[in-house]
């Protein structure tokens, strides 16, 4: 192949002006084995490209249907485990709470509440008798008021005897 043509293609290549077809020509030339010695060094670039384009994977890929089944099974396993864990947790909580309730009941037996004596109400139909009861009740009330009055009088006496700061005696 005309070396001047190759040179012009290389110039275009480095300016990113080559077409896909021209780049194919360059690749074919530099990997042909009959290269002009003046291109020996630059040929290495195209040899690297070729070597990289020939890299192949040795992996045997699983059919996606198989991969998907594996994934679904994995998900199902996780779901089952989670469900069992939830059930186990619920049983533990129930058992623990039942145990605590029973223990509390045994240790804290509630003593029988003493009976409160409830006043015996008497139905009074006779007005005089009703009056007598009322007077008795008022007497009790007056007695209580009397006590209060004494307390107030004593308090007032203390206040009267207390000297007021700044006032003339």
């Amino acid at each position, binding site marked *: 192949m005309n070396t001047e043509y190759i040179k012009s293609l290389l110039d275009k290549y480095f300016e990113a002006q080559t077409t896909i077809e021209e780049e194919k020509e360059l690749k074919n030339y530099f990997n042909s084995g009959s290269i002009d010695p003046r291109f020996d060094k630059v040929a*290495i670039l195209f*040899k690297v490209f070729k070597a990289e384009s020939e890299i192949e994977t040795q992996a045997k890929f699983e059919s996606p249907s198989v991969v998907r089944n594996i994934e679904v099974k994995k998900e199902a396993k996780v779901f089952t485990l989670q469900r069992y864990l939830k059930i186990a947790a619920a049983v533990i909580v129930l058992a623990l709470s039942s145990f605590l309730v029973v223990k509390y009941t045994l240790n804290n037996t509630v003593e029988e509440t003493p009976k409160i004596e409830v006043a015996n109400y008497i139905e009074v139909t006779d007005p005089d008798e009703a009056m007598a009861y009322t007077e008795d009740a008022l007497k009790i009330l007056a007695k209580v008021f009397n006590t209060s009055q004494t307390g107030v009088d004593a308090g007032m006496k203390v206040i009267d005897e207390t000297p007021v700061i700044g006032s003339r005696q």
Partner: protein
Amino acid sequence: MQNENIISEVMKYKDKLYRFALKMLGNEFDAEDVVQEVLVKVWQKSDQLELIDNKQAWCMTVTRNLSIDKIRGRKSTNASAIEDYHYLTDTKPTPDIQTEDKESLSIVMKTLNSLPDNQKEIIHLRDIEGYTYKEIAEITGYSEEQVKVNLFRARQKLKHELRNFTY
């Protein structure tokens, strides 16, 4: 049956998908994982895939996206930023090339590896896989103009670094 047919079709270019994933991830096992995931996606989306003209470009896009997801996963576990991740690591073996000029080969490999990731990706799709600008734009999500600009920059860098390779 329809699914099986599409899978058979995709399997014809599984090596292209693998090479692209390998270029992005720099790890054979991760690249194989990505191809397997692509096949599962193809299987799941076989109805939609029927309507797509360029199935290969679609699969390459899925490969790219899954590879980026893997890199992000590494980022969260290894705290290495996606921007800092180099597709072709220095530890990756040099391709088996028949040349006695090991020094020149080393310069070529070093130059290719030093390209920014987007340029490396475009060089791979154009110079190794032979895609058109339109297809590269479709695969990467860049505009055709961005593809041309990045390819130009990448080749200019190659030209500059290989300036001693006079011809």
